[in-house]
């Protein structure tokens, strides 16, 4: 029996559990109906999507059908999985069979993939309900979700401000209550920075922990899919469902799913929490204040605060903005108007390429393609791309050394709280600086996550970034859970 009658909630679904963990447990055990859960969230979307614009596409009907399927399964006594009936929003750069996947770019407008990304299949197997495809900076290139061919997403806490980016739609969707969970992709901070700006939890797992198959590539050696959630426990639930080896991704790490959920209540007693003494400057006073309080909170919780140095940290931005565009210039060469997506006709194929790509890509994407093409081109490879790869190695070595002395490191996730739309669009460099603190873990492959920790100027959310060594998500989540418990209210 799909026992909606066994709980009390009104037509709008008020009274239904809001945490993914609770929704899944109750749907899985037939206490509440997945259909009611979906209707509740579609109702929220109905109410606020107009001002937030988190979605490129809301999958109302598919979601209703899928939810009914879940309820039927539960009624039939089947175990519908750890995410049974939980609505999940997908960043629109993850391939969904038969459902448009645009990367918020004109060049992919109207294209529907003939296959599902691995994460999409895993969500399905776990009983999740995909509720929509969320907005992003075109091809995940940006830090504000203003570089979308389909219009900017706005921050649910203050719609005059950006949600961060590039996964701004996924962050906003969770913050606005459109879905309890969402997936984003993080190449230089594209999950952690918007999570911080929207006041939700955002996780960039260890490179290779989550399959990239079906994630439209931006920078292949840096891209990683990860969860957004309202709290650490929900983020853990989603990460466990999507992680684990995939033979379809050659860079996927061998071994089963990450297990992080059971460590959340272990506390941080005796844990060595690193404070980076030579952390690059640039964080605003309110953010710095929250960071100091986060160290105090963990010390009070029994952790040992240790000073560490990461001298190469400061070179991360330069290395990243040479490596990522270089890989992107190659990854985005396939958008040529021959096999799929946009074509602008021209008298010969070479002219057609240029006409199609010039019309199909936005300014930021073109800028990065040119930067990356230059960094790889004859005569400049060694000075730019080649050199950046050596800096990358240096950064990895410095972090490895720091992790000799500390189990986790804390930094700001974003230098500032959410800024206003248009503040940084005229100056690309100012936008790039948003990634200062998140970039290094993409270069090293180590995990990082942002957890809300109080507010800053104008009462806007601040996120603290917890960094850990590769595959140490367990201790990272433990630390984040402690910060969550001790966050200023």
């Amino acid at each position, binding site marked *: 029996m799909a026992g909606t009658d066994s709980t009390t909630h009104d037509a709008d679904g008020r009274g239904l559990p809001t945490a993914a963990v609770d929704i899944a447990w109750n749907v899985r055990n037939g206490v509440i109906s997945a259909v009611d859960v979906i209707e509740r969230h579609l109702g929220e979307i109905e109410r606020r999507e107009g001002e937030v614009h988190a979605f490129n596409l809301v999958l109302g009907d598919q979601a209703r059908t899928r939810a009914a399927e879940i309820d039927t399964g539960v009624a039939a006594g089947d175990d519908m999985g750890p995410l049974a009936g939980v609505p999940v929003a997908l960043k629109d750069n993850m*391939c969904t069979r038969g459902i448009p996947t645009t990367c918020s770019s004109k060049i992919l407008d109207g294209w529907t*993939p003939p296959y599902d990304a691995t994460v999409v299949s895993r969500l399905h197997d776990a009983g999740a309900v995909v509720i929509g495809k969320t907005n992003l900076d075109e091809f995940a290139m940006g830090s504000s979700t203003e570089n979308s061919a389909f219009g900017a997403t706005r921050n649910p806490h203050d719609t005059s401000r950006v949600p961060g980016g590039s996964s701004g739609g996924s962050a906003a969707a969770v913050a606005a209550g459109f879905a309890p969970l969402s997936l984003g992709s993080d190449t230089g901070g594209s999950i952690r920075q918007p999570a911080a700006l929207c006041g939700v939890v955002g996780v960039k797992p260890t490179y290779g922990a989550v399959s990239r198959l079906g*994630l439209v*590539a931006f920078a292949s050696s840096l891209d990683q899919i990860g969860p957004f959630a309202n709290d650490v426990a929900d983020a853990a639930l989603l990460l466990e469902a999507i992680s684990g080896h995939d033979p379809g*991704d050659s860079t996927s790490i061998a071994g089963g799913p990450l297990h992080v959920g059971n460590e959340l209540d272990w506390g941080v007693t005796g844990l060595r929490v690193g404070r980076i003494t030579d952390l690059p400057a640039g964080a605003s006073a309110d953010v710095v204040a929250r960071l100091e309080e986060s160290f105090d909170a963990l010390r009070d919780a029994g952790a040992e605060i240790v000073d560490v140095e990461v001298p190469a940290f400061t070179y991360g931005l330069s290395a990243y903005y040479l490596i990522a565009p270089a890989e992107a210039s*190659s990854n985005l060469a396939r958008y040529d108007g021959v096999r799929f997506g946009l074509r602008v006709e021209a008298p010969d194929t070479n002219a057609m390429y240029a006409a199609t790509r010039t019309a199909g890509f936005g300014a930021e994407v073109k800028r990065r393609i040119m930067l990356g093409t230059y960094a790889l081109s004859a005569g400049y*490879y060694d000075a730019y791309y080649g050199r950046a790869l050596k800096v990358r190695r240096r950064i990895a070595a410095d972090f490895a050394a720091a992790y000799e002395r500390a189990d986790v490191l804390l930094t700001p996730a974003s230098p500032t709280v959410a800024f206003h739309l248009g503040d940084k669009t005229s100056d690309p460099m100012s936008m790039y600086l948003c990634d200062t603190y998140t970039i290094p873990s993409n270069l090293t492959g180590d995990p990082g996550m942002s957890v809300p920790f109080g507010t800053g100027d104008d009462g806007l959310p601040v996120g603290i970034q917890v960094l850990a060594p590769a595959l140490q998500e367990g201790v990272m989540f433990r630390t984040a859970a402690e910060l969550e418990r001790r966050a200023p209210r």
Partner: protein
Amino acid sequence: MSQGTDSQTATSRTGTSRAGASVDGWAFEGYEMVVGLEVHVELATATKLFSGSPNRFGDEPNTNIDPVTLGLPGALPVLNRRAVELAMKLGLALNCTVRRSTFARKNYFYPDMPKAYQISQYDEPICVDGWLDLPGGIRVGIERAHLEEDTGKSTHLGGSGGRIHGSDYSLIDFNRAGVPLVEIVSRPDIRTPDQARAYVAELRSILVAVGASDAKMEEGSMRVDANVSVRRPGAEFGTRCEIKNLNSVRSVGRAIEYEAQRQVGMLDAGEAIRQETRHWDENDGRTHTLRSKEDADDYRYFQEPDLVVVDPDPAWIERVRASLPVLPAARRDRLAEATGQPSDAEAVLVVTDRGQDDYVLAVAAAGGDAGRALVHVKEAFAEQGARPSVPAGDLAALTTMEGKGALTATQAKQVLAQLVAAGGGDPEAIAAAKGFEAMDTGELERMVDDAIAAQPDAWAKFCGGEGKAMGALVGAVMKASRGQADGKAVTRLLESRRTAG
């Protein structure tokens, strides 16, 4: 001596073999040619290099496609272990070192290149520093053999029809895209068109022998580019031109012959050679400029982030080495030894290429005459495969009868034809049935005496030392014996009669 046609070269090396044996260098107005060959071969795998769609020639257009083949957004390559193994196999067969290797992206736009980059091994190829010995003892160095993916196929339509220039549009089929290729790059050790042909023919036999590829030039599963330059012997290398579109062993020879002479002509006319890529036109027998080095693309190679290092451990390499069959050169030596022929003799080359060398050895093992067997197999077994239908024992018996002089060459041929037609049989019985029983010397002597008696003046001339008079007498005996007499035996009898008389 080396006019192999396209179809011949695809099935056997007839016509190109002795070319390989020739060591006499090519020289033209005091210049020598310096040639290196780049050969692309499609590997005989079931699936593509980085995805599971079939590697199959001749299917309906765009039926062997998947997200990786089409370079769809989000697609990721996963390396085919079998392709790596075949590359290692042929590398070891070419005496290469198998090493730790990586893949790179070669970035360029072309409609039959789906991702706008080709995944290819660049600065770290899997096989390096080998060599290939040509029949006749010339050694050609192998610089490298690396794995890469093939492109799709473009068909140019409208306009002048079929040709890329002046066509109205093109249609693209991606069935071939992603098919595993090995590119084998020789050192510039080749000095004559014959050597070039022999190199291609020998490389082909090795590829087929190790099962790496069917290496059919006419189907494009083996494609040859030639780097050609000329110089005064001993001087520095000259400026080279790369010749493309060499679709047969024959055109390889013709193209480099033409190109070398063209370059000599330019140098003699005081002109400088421009480094460029040139296209061989089979019809007008010339090479034409395709593109010059100046407008060569900037490929922006960088390591493929979607693939990881291929680092075969010694155990794997040794397993592959152990799986190598006996290679053509060794098989030719073995056959040569058994038959007393030079190992680059036409018969040895042809029979080994047909894979019938083991059969000839089996005939010898069955007590037959290996030398005679080799000749018979080369002449009469062209239509037969590596396992001829005639039991080795039967051919052995035939060669034994020949050895005993029990059959004349003519008779032996007829018996052999019968054996081939019937797929075996007892040569003795066949010879008997044909009335080939060797006549006893008594009968033969009587015929000789009859001939002498019938032509006294021919006999007198013969005794007087006119050798050609013998023809009439032998002829008479042959006539009387209805061609069954052994010519040598008749001559011997006449000689003995003369010395006796």
